[in-house]
């Protein structure tokens, strides 16, 4: 065992010392026992009448803020739909061929005209989605928009309840406040608003994904497995979340049961689609083949489109394999390290899905953004929070600008858009890595020095 401890620079030491100081000030907050004690004291105080009145008032305030959130979000969505729909629906960071409403429209029109949608490779949407939409197609568009807003509300509520459940399970303080924050974070997120305003299919998939997250947090084995099957069927990459589910369920019996349910769901959905498509598997090469081979090089916020536009042909297949294997490998590896912290594994997996799937959009990012309040307790170890937030906001702003420069005004070329999307992904990756780091630091702290009395210095001991 070699150590790299001795060589740490002075600045690191200073930083370490700073962290220690900071941690000391937060000792009360992080100690579970202390928290429980504080709660007791608080509950004693609440007996006072005046405080009771205050509490009622805060509840009023909370319900008011909920109403304002829902109303504001709805109005924003309607405004976006009415005024900037055309602009937003052309943005590659909001809609890819897999979730685009225009492609859905084409697919439905083909279905109605009796043209097989899967002869070519324009329609990349599952037959069941096409059939469902062809049934409700005649409904006026505002009905669809209302349904999308409700789906978003459902998703936001699931995120809220999921956060609440996580906070309660981990004995973190103020679960209700953070849950309300998660709700606002999801429902008022500009990216969510834009996604549902352009009627992107990602809204539907996201509501399923958030329902899965809720079921996951509630340890509802059957519901979670079924939902995971459905969501994995539609957008494939969330299948890696099954690893989180395994480490959550722990026992072999439960794991095999969930696997069975998952397989059944997938097989059932596949059969339904197969039957809807006239007992033909032609949709497979469109809906899944395109995800894996990346033949459609329409730009998106991921890292792969430009890479596969530029890669030399002989190396193409090699890199396809490499990039498609990164996501499952990482999730699997992380499962060993984070086997006791399933929620964080889920969160990091969600971030990695938003980075390493073939055709990601901003809609992939909003789910993990909604779950971010759960890092509140470990935030004292954060290293570059401000930098990451600023990068994220800047990139989200710059993406449409560089896209306009490249596509419309011609004053910039592809590299501008590519560079910004690269930094956007870098920010997400650092976010995931930082969460992992914070979690490990806290664990180390809790295990090695629960009393917080030692003079400590944190080193990484490398095994090789």
């Amino acid at each position, binding site marked *: 065992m070699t*150590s790299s401890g001795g060589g740490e620079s002075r600045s690191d030491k200073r930083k370490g010392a700073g962290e220690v100081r900071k941690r000391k000030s937060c000792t009360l907050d992080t100690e579970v026992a202390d928290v429980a004690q504080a709660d007791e004291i608080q509950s004693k105080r609440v007996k006072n009448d005046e405080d009771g009145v205050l509490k009622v008032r805060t509840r009023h305030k909370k319900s008011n803020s909920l109403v304002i959130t829902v109303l504001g979000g709805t109005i924003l969505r309607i405004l976006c739909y009415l005024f900037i729909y055309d602009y937003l629906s052309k943005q590659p960071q909001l809609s890819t061929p897999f979730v685009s409403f225009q492609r859905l429209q084409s697919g439905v029109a083909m279905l109605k005209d009796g043209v097989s949608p899967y002869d070519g490779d324009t329609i990349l949407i599952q037959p069941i989605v096409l059939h469902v939409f062809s049934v409700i197609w005649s409904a006026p568009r505002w009905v669809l928009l209302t349904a999308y807003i409700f789906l978003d509300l459902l998703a936001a509520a699931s995120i809220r309840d999921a956060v609440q459940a996580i906070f309660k399970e981990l004995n973190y303080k103020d679960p209700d406040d953070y849950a309300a924050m998660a709700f606002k974070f999801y429902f008022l997120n500009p990216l969510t608003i834009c996604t549902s305003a352009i009627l992107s299919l990602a809204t539907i998939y996201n509501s399923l994904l958030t329902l899965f997250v809720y079921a996951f947090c509630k340890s509802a084995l059957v519901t979670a497995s079924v939902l995971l099957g459905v969501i994995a069927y539609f957008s494939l990459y969330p299948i890696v979340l099954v690893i989180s589910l395994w480490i959550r369920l722990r026992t072999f019996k439960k794991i095999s049961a969930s696997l069975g349910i998952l397989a059944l769901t997938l097989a059932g959905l596949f059969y339904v689609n197969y039957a809807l498509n006239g007992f033909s598997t032609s949709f497979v090469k469109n809906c899944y083949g395109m995800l894996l081979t990346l033949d459609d090089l329409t730009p998106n916020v991921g890292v792969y489109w430009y890479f596969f536009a530029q890669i030399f042909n002989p190396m193409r297949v090699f890199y396809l394999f490499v990039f498609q294997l990164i996501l499952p490998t990482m999730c699997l590896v992380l499962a060993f390290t984070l086997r006791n912290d399933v929620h964080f594994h889920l969160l990091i997996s969600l971030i990695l899905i938003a980075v390493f799937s073939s055709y990601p959009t901003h809609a992939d990012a909003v789910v993990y953004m909604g779950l971010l309040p759960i890092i509140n307790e470990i935030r004292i170890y954060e290293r570059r929070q401000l930098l990451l937030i600023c990068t994220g906001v800047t990139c989200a702003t710059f993406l449409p600008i560089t896209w306009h420069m490249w596509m419309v005004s011609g004053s910039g070329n592809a590299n501008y858009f590519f560079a910004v999307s690269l930094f956007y992904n870098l920010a997400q990756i650092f976010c995931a890595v930082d969460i992992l780091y914070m979690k490990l630091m806290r664990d180390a702290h809790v295990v090695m020095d629960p009393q917080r009395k030692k003079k400590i210095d944190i*080193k990484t*001991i490398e095994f090789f």
Partner: protein
Amino acid sequence: MWDSNGLVVLIFVGCLAGAVFGDRYNEELTISRLPTNALLANFRFTIDSDGDKLGPDYHLFPRLVAEMIKSHDIAELELAFAQGRWRLDEWGLQTQPAIPTGAHLIAWINGKNESAIDAEWTNLVDSLNGIFCSSISSISKHLTASPKQTLKMNGVKKENGKMMQVRYGAVPEESLCTENLTPWRKLLPCKSDGLISLLNPYSIYATTYSTMGLNVIRLCQEKTCHWRLNAHISVVFETNLEALEAGILFDTLFKRDLAGRCSVAESSRLLIRKGNDEIDFSPSPKSIHGEGHHSYAVFDLNDKDLDLRKIEFTYKNVDASRREPAIGIFTVQGGVDQQSGTLKTRIINSDRGSKTVTLMHILPWFMRIYYGSIQMKCQLLGGSKENVIPAVLSKNFKESLIRTSPSTIEWQFVLLHESMCEFEFEFDKAHMRIWDYPPDANHGMYAAGALLVIDDKEGRLHNHRPILGDYVNSAYEQLVNPTLPYPLSYSVFSNPILVSLPVPDFSMPFNVICFVLTVVSFCISPVLRYTTSMIMITDGVTLEKNRGRNLVRVLLLGLCGLAIYAQVNEMSTSDIRRKIEELFRKLNDMGSM
């Protein structure tokens, strides 16, 4: 009376000659004044084979074509090139068979199954590409379509129990030049005598519109079948009224005179459309056939009494009444950005009769068509501008496949009398791999124009044609033989369009690869580090010192010092290298001592 007897004798002799030599060869040049006072010259060389079986002895029918037909099992074939654009609104209907700007190839191929037909087609495209020194091989790569409704076979299929399918490919950016003409000329039996001697590349390729093509058809008459090869060239010479009135010689148009007569040609004719003009012919033609718009002065160039150098025609009085163009079609592209666009094809029917038409668009894969956005709007011309709902009879749509095949749109509908229809749809412009872009990527890529096939059973468009002659029959055959039907359908092509595609930066594939892999490694390396190591809390005790790391630091410091020293002394890198070399040499010397 003598005339008809003469004709009978001629036909008899012709049959006899046919029996003796087998194959027959006819040549014909039709000259017609277009409404803008331009002159259209249409050459047509027809070779009829002796019988259904081609080979093993070849007389006049080119062996190259015969072997191609046999080896690829082709039922019918058309290859044509066109340079420039036929102006439908000024010149009237296109000469039939119509040719789009660029090149197109149509083949009806027999085969066991579709993949066998595709394989034959690929070989055929490549061999024709080689024979005619063209660059149409992109057809076999990603421009092959197999339309279902628009294209009809003109000949008769050989019954051999195999399935037959049509394959179509068009290359709008193909240009026509001398190197295509030379192999084409070599297919004909007379290479420097007869009408072919007029084909002077300098004059025919200096014009605004010229075409070149050939088609091979199998024709049957009561169980006896034979093959026919039509080789045709059309040229439009931009002339004006003064030039027409000054008199036209072969030399004026082609800058060359007729050199001799082709001895194997069964007939060699010059047809000049008289129409309603007053034309002075010198020498005067033996006969003027036809009437009205399609009346032609016919010269038999095989006639020994005719001095070929002295044929001249002078327009005395030109029929100035401009005929309203019966059919108009053009394609325009909308959209301001490189991301997506709209394609709009406008079809105008100024004729009094409604027509059943089929519109076919073959669009390359980089135009990703939104099927849901396809719509057709029709409007009556004239004062009312009333919107009418078009009667769509049948639709056929085939989506494109990335890098493999184009999308096919075929819409058959009724084009009402004096109406205008607009067929439009939206498309996304695809992003391609950098290796798929042409060398001049910012120029954009071409997409072929639409083909409109107009059914005209009533013969209303007959008088809108500049010359007679169709896919099968030559102008003279149609002129003297009224039992030959008028073409039942006409095809016209709209203009090709130039799509400006979004382009990546071509200069930096290595940079992109490095950047992306760096970003990915930013994820992999910390995950690897944190998952394979353990975070320990040391009790303020510093562990043993790492000498290796310190050594590296010292080295780095040394390098920095060196850099600063070089900067201060304003040394260039070559100076430093020289000094280091000197140092090493000294060390060597020390070592050797």
